């Protein structure tokens, strides 16, 4: 078991494209860590560079106290589960799981016993003699995990571990994965483009864009206090409403209407400053009567989300989405008022950075989440 530290890590491809661009990240021992971002953001490149499958161009990688930057993948004591699982089709489940031990020259009896033990723990008991092609997707994934577990690594790397499973199975596998990680307590890094998956599984999330770190924090932090507009719009199953406006005294003017200044921004803005106001659809509420400090608009689209409704309200030239209770279903074309809580809304400056005390601090802030998330919970 070990922590992982990268120091100004750069991976440059021939042609000058930077997959990873000057990254400083510390992944704590025993942590379940997510690398999140849209496709092409460099998250998989970072994972592969940590694994040693890609050679870094600049910077250093440490696993525990050991500098592994120049080490072969096989010497790093890591295990990786690939997106396609990469189970050897010509070997049985048993042989697949025991393969890492075979390379480590562990005797046949010992390694088969270990394979059986790990398989049992991962609910693969009756399948030892089968070939990968004879297994379901979920079983194949568990075999891939079992092979990783059997090799006794100090770090697990998972590349899009759930993306090849169908939706229903994915939830099941997610819970399974989280429990497995808690039981083993091995430092685990996984790559995903699905923000819901990252929020559900990870202890901490690193959000990347174009090879650069955007924010690093606990799921609660990145959800409630995104560092910039990119993170704000990327996190959350319905993206945060981001609306241009300007500061006017203790309120923000949006399409000529005033909403209260978000609490976190109080004292950090100047009058007349151009800003982006951010409010999550979940944190906004809808009324059919006029209220002070509410945005007046017209209902244009209503989408059913099952237990809730997603209502799009036209306010001036902006479209603001609000999530309401399933019983509240405003008629299309009616006039409604959107109320926001100053405590739940955010303000971003013209560069897209969040305006708040200490919010401009470097995104690669490695201090644990406790302090900051306590504030937001208050």
């Amino acid at each position: 078991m070990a922590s992982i530290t990268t120091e100004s890590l750069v991976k440059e491809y021939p042609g000058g494209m930077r997959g990873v661009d000057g990254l400083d990240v510390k992944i704590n021992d025993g942590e379940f860590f997510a690398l999140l971002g849209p496709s092409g953001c460099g998250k998989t490149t970072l994972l592969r560079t940590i694994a040693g499958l890609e050679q870094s161009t600049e910077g250093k990688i440490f696993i525990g106290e050991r500098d592994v930057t120049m080490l072969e993948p096989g010497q790093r004591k890591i295990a990786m589960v690939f997106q396609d699982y990469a189970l050897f089709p010509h070997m049985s489940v048993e042989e697949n799981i025991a393969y890492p031990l075979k390379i480590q020259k562990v005797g046949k009896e010992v390694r088969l016993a270990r394979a059986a033990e790990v398989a049992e723990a991962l609910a693969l008991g009756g399948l030892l003699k089968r070939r990968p092609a004879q297994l379901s997707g979920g079983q194949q994934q568990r075999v891939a995990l079992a092979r990783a577990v059997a090799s006794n690594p100090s770090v697990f790397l998972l590349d899009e571990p759930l993306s090849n499973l169908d939706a229903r199975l994915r939830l099941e596998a997610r819970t399974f994965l989280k429990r497995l990680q808690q039981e083993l307590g091995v430092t685990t890094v996984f790559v995903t483009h699905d923000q819901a998956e990252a929020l559900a599984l990870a202890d901490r999330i690193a959000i990347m864009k174009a090879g650069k770190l955007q924010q690093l924090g606990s799921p609660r932090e990145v959800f409630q206090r995104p560092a910039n507009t990119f993170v704000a719009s990327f996190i959350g199953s319905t993206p945060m409403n981001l609306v241009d406006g300007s500061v006017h005294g203790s309120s923000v003017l949006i399409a000529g209407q005033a909403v209260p200044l978000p609490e976190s921004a109080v004292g950090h803005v100047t009058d007349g400053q151009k800003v982006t106001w951010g409010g999550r659809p979940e944190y906004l509420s809808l009324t059919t009567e006029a209220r002070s400090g509410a945005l007046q608009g017209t209902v244009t689209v209503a989408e059913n989300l099952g237990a809730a409704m997603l209502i799009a309200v036209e306010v001036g030239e902006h479209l603001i989405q609000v999530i309401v209770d399933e019983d509240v279903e405003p008629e299309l074309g009616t006039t409604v008022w959107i109320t926001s809580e100053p405590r739940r809304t955010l303000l971003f400056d013209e560069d897209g950075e969040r305006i708040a005390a200490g919010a401009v601090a470097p995104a690669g802030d490695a201090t644990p989440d406790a302090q900051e998330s306590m504030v937001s919970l208050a």
Partner: protein
Amino acid sequence: MISSVIQPEAQSGVAVRKFLGLIGKTLFIAFVLAFFTIPVLWLVMAPFDAHPQLAVKVPEFTLNNFVVLFTDSSALSSLGNSVVLALGTMVLVLVLGSLASYSLSRVRIPGREILLYSLLLLSSIITGTAAMVPTFLLMVRLQLIDSTLGVILVMGAGILPTVIFILKDFMDSTPKSFEESARLYGAKPLRILWDVVVPLARPGLATIAVWAVVQVWGNFLVPFILLRSPGKAPAAVVMYTFYTEGGQPDLALISAFSLVFSLPVIAMYFFVNRRYGFRFHGGIKS
């Protein structure tokens, strides 16, 4: 009224044309079929005929041809020679071919495709007639004339480029994550080749193995020129020596030997197909 008079005539015209077309098609297919079947029929029937001719006829059944063939010691030993040459070449091209194609598939070198294509084009020269004199001189210098090894090397060199070309395609199509997975657990390149790549490319290797054996088995020119002593000659060369005292080809012996000569290749095809299968198998979830 008019249309009803014309129509049946037109219809019958169409029917006649269809009928003639059918006859034409059938005749054509029968001709093509005969073209391929008659030699095979001859091969199966002539060996059991007391007086075989260059024609397909109901044989006067006898097994005497085989008795004569197997009492001629050179026939059997030549089959043994053929086996040695074919298997030797097969092993040579499988080992060198898989190593070369694996590295060519995984290592990017400039001009790789051009190299492969030019090798493929030039390779036909080595075992071809045009290069026989230089090849002969080269083998004389290397003191590999009248040596089984010499024949294996020349045959191997001749078919290796095609082998590499085909195998590289197989190697290209095996997903890299298999190897990366093995690499992460500490496997070295040769180990990965043996544990992962070779088993995955097995259908390709089986195809190549059969193809290499067939190439050598049926080759007459190279062993005919490079081997001097009759005791080393393979079956394809020995068959050339079956003449009657009158200088006529001994059809009884030639036909019997042809049948014996073709059986191992057919048997091998069925064995390899059953054991390894010329097919792909999955294991990647995509």
